[in-house]
């Protein structure tokens, strides 16, 4: 499969190590259609290709990716300028259960760079707000400086139909918000555990403890969804790199139902 050319319409630095790319098809053709939770393989000319979750609004014509500059490809990506070209293959993988969640409460839990893969789901929930019960966003980062999409979070906090709680691992001078791991926010949120769908993205240990905490409060494992991360070279289940037990993270995931993978999550070096 060959990448399709996309032009950088805008690049924005979000925090010290994260940035957002806004892309449009170079040939100006079709709208990029994807389901919340899916990812693209993004190719940087001569450098390489990486899997990155899609972060924008599903109905929008602009393709948005927010990521952290950590490896050679994402670092090269962070240096792109308006008008540069990247290659896109996708969208790949499974998506958030926004249909199954209809009529139910939805708890969205994000840790750090885990917020971008959840953002399209939030857009969907808000765009079809009447279809859902309570919608809660719990978001934890390392420090206040690492909080992504601050303006958007503030706008969301101003809404009466969305509860937003934010916490940080370490406060900084001037921080008046919550301090502590994201699981501590679960008790603050009001939702009906027997009629809730949870969507979680963050480090594996964070997702595991969040799921355990939710289950302690009565949310069933089958109602909890997480998004996994693994090394990927092809994105289509052929290269073998993303295996997670018997699952291919790229095509069986990245979004998994928690009961499908909970036994794998506790195995060392699986």
């Amino acid at each position, binding site marked *: 499969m060959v990448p399709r050319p996309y032009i950088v319409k805008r690049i924005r630095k979000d925090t010290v190590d994260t940035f957002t790319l806004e892309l449009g098809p170079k040939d100006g053709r079709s709208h990029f259609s994807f389901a919340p939770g899916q990812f693209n393989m993004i190719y940087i000319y001569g450098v390489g290709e990486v899997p990155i979750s899609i972060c924008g609004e599903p109905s929008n014509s602009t393709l948005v990716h927010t990521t952290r500059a950590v*490896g050679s490809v994402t670092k090269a990506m962070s240096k792109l300028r308006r008008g540069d070209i990247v*290659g896109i293959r996708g969208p790949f993988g499974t998506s958030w259960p926004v249909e199954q969640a209809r009529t139910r409460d939805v708890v969205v839990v994000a840790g750090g760079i885990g917020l971008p893969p959840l953002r399209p789901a939030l857009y969907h929930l808000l765009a079809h707000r009447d279809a859902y019960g309570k919608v809660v966003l719990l978001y934890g980062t390392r420090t206040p400086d690492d909080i992504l999409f601050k303006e958007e979070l503030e706008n969301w906090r101003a809404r009466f139909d969305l509860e937003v709680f934010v916490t940080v691992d370490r406060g900084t001078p001037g921080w008046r918000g919550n301090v502590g791991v994201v699981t501590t926010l679960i008790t603050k949120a009001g939702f009906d555990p027997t009629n809730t769908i949870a969507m979680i993205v963050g480090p594996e240990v964070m997702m595991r403890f969040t799921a355990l905490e939710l289950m302690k409060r009565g949310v069933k494992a089958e109602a909890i969804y997480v998004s996994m991360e693994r090394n990927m070279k092809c994105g289509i289940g052929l290269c073998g790199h993303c295996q997670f037990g018997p699952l291919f993270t790229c095509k069986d995931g990245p979004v998994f139902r928690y009961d499908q993978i909970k036994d794998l999550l506790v195995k060392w070096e699986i």
Partner: protein
Amino acid sequence: MSTPRMYRIEPDALNELIQSLRQQHYTVIGPTPRGAAIVLDEITSTSQLPIGKTDEQAPAQYRLKERGDDAMFAFSAGPHSWKRYLFPPVLKLFSSRKNGEGFQISEELPSSDHEEKYALLGVRACDLSAIQIQDKVFGGGTYQDPAYVRVRNQAFIIAVNCTRAGGTCFCSSVRTGPRARVGFDLAMSEVLDSEHYFIVEVGTDRGENVISTVTSRAAEDGEVEKAEHLIRAAAQSTGRSLEPDNTREILYQNSDHPRWDTVAARCLSCANCTMVCPTCFCATVEDTTDLAGTSADRIRKWDSCFTLDFSYIHGGSVRPSSKARYRHWITHKLASWVDQFGTIGCVGCGRCITWCPVGIDITEEFRVIRETYLMKRGTNPNKE
């Protein structure tokens, strides 16, 4: 096909077969001695086959020996498997060229059909199963590997039934051999006693068309039976076995077995087993540019789950220990492969045992884990 069509051909007619395939624009790939091993490469005549040669294989050991006769297929699976033709070790996926602000990508398509039209001569039953397994991996899912499918669809397969068990083989226990059952155009059995001939079984109409171009006659029942007897004898003399049932339960329930430490203490994480394995399908990609940066290529290369880089994500490898990597490999091969593709990924060719520099034996490693499983269930493995 109701009754298999059986022919007898003489050794000289095998050369006619090779020439006939070449005339039909096939590149004939077959076994040939090179250095101290029998490898696979293009052959243009039977004289390039390993005539009178055999191999002695044991864990971490491979030796060529002279037999002092004219046998052409009296050896076992060598270091090469057919995947190097259907799923090449190095393959350019695309080239891109800088143009102005951006770049132009052009997909790498075969320059001529001739190069990719292979006739595979001497495919053992185990390797035939391996090809069928890779068919599922590369061609059986939602996404297919177009390069594999293209080459595979054109390939002409001449299987050779084994009439001798190699030192590390265990095909009969995993039910893949020593006789080729399906998936070939032609299947040959070599008989060498008072006379030297081949029994050729036709598997497809394409095979029938090819065999009709060479000197042959219908095989007599006695001749066919002689070949069948040799194949049965090979099955009975196989020295190793791997019990292919319940592999998922056995391995999934023993991910903390102490044996993983024992094997990890020996495993060098060298990746030899995955390179020689005829079903291992993992690959990586390399993106390179020329010095000026005006063109960039993407190359796909075989990869191995035994390397640290294989599972690297930001922050480190998912499987930093060789213990985890060995466990991953054997668990994938024998257990999760079943979840993924409906069959185990091991065909009993024994290559991973022969070519492991420290002689780790997959049948032995699995046997130990299986015994623990049976013991826990109250079944005495010795009385089974």
